[in-house]
């Protein structure tokens, strides 16, 4: 365990978040069992009041998740100089088996919290709360994942040992110890570029179609989900190297640093906006069958679709920028 302020902050945050998520899911359980919108009983009134608490908690958890995701990768970056062979965050995440799983879980939970808030918003927009039960079942799932995330993160930090000057005898470094150089498998740049920009165009085309006609929501959502995964691959494969102007440097974290003008923040925020809103379109589509959502559902979908397209467009524009305005060429790598 390394006792750095960032780790203390992340751990304290994780404990709080997991605790609140557990608390919220206990209430969700009560709501799933006792909900009866038609009744005016005190029990029902109390449950309705509790929905406000849960919504508030999740709004905060969402905000927390986003900051903690960035903070986590930045902490890994910040600690890399404590490990032999770790050049940046990619290396520190590799020091034990829990680094990358924690990061992936964090990103995934971030998406889920966003989707939950979208479902919550949809549900609250009509008076009979048609999604109340699926919504709270999803919430319990998210709470479990948040708990797992907290455990993974704690294990990651606890098992972390800095390679510092320690022993009094012999050499200080041991040659048997494996180094943690974390190379990331990158897809070949040229084909990835072609597929990525084609996918962006297709997604935007589908999005415009959906925005105009209200149809093909599921198709848009699927293509947005595909684009989300592809975008992360693209960052590693060619977007990040273009910012570094180094063909071999594929780290998706270093772009968050000052040397690259913190360009990673807008880049990833745009990506997450695009992804969450895009997935939201599909999730609402799944529930559109509910009669009361006939009016409100499609309208919300349209807004989300627009938001999602703006997010992806921004992402694409930021990713194109260094290719146009710098002399660096990645072709051939």
């Amino acid at each position, binding site marked *: 365990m390394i006792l750095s302020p960032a780790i203390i902050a992340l751990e304290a945050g994780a404990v709080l978040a997991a605790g609140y998520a557990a608390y919220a899911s206990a209430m969700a359980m009560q709501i799933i069992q006792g909900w009866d919108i038609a009744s005016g009983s005190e029990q029902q009134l109390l449950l*309705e009041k509790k929905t406000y608490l849960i919504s508030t908690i999740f709004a905060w958890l969402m905000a927390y998740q986003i900051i903690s995701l960035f903070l986590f990768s930045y902490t890994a970056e910040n600690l890399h100089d404590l490990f032999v062979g770790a050049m940046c965050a990619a290396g520190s995440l590799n020091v034990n088996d829990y680094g990358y799983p924690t990061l992936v879980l964090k990103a995934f939970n971030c998406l889920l919290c966003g989707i939950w808030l979208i479902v919550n918003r949809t549900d*609250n927009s009509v*008076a009979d709360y048609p999604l109340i039960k699926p919504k709270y079942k999803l919430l319990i799932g998210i709470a479990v994942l948040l708990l797992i995330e907290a455990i993974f993160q704690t294990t990651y930090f606890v098992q972390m040992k800095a390679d510092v000057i320690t022993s009094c005898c012999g050499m200080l470094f041991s040659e048997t110890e494996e180094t943690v150089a974390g190379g990331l498998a990158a897809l070949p740049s040229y084909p990835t570029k072609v597929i990525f920009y084609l996918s962006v165009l297709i997604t935007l085309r589908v999005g415009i179609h959906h925005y105009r006609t209200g149809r093909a929501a599921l198709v848009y959502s699927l293509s947005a989900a595909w684009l989300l995964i592809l975008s992360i691959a693209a960052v590693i494969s060619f977007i990040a190297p273009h910012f570094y102007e180094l063909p071999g440097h594929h780290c998706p974290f270093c772009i968050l640093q000052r040397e690259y003008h913190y360009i990673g923040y807008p880049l990833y925020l745009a990506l997450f906006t695009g992804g969450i809103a895009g997935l939201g379109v599909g999730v609402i589509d799944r529930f559109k069958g509910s009669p009361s959502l006939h009016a409100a559902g499609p309208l919300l979908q349209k807004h989300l679709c627009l938001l999602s397209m703006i997010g992806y467009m921004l992402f694409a524009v930021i990713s194109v920028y260094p290719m146009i305005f710098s002399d660096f060429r990645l072709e051939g790598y």
Partner: protein
Amino acid sequence: MIELSQVSKVFNPGRHNAFTALHGIDLSIKTGGVTVFKGPSGSGKTTLLSVIGCMARPTTGRIFLDGTEITGLPERFATLTRRQTFGFIFQNYNLIRGLTVLENTMIPAYPTGRNYQEIRQRALELLEKLKIESKVPMKVEHLSGGEQQRTAIARALINDPAVVIADEPTAHLDTELSMELLEIVNDLKNEGKTILVASHDPLIFESTAVDRVVSLRDGKMIDQETPR
């Protein structure tokens, strides 16, 4: 048009201190005009007003507002309806101490998302109409009873509600101020607002401005009279 059918309200149901405040009320109130609910304290006037005003849900029965049922609305939507349709004047005025007359008047409009300048303009107009524009920057605790009452009225009108609900508005006023209040009520009526008043003050329910008086006792309606 407000319609109540078989509305009952029980506080603390199923417990030893259960108390039935309203017993199967059937009532229909037309748009426009002044309706007074009279009866001794504890007769259920206030409860009836809060049930009509979407503040509390009835235990049984249904309420319709212009033909739409508002009985089972969750709080989120009940609040919206309440904010758009009703303005409230409370017995103790219930102004927020430490804030100015203007701020107090504007409070109900804050969550509506209307433009600030627009709200402010509307509040100033109302305060001018109620003749307390000179007190605008004053803190409410420095006002006299009548001025507080007027501030409360201005606050009730800020969102331009169709229905104004007043609970014992003359409880803390002398005769002269009560007459002034009646004048204001009459003006509102002439503007086409529906006014519901709970009062056991003869000055009110014998006033010429009143269109209808509903008597309550022990949570039941005992008779309705239409003076004119």
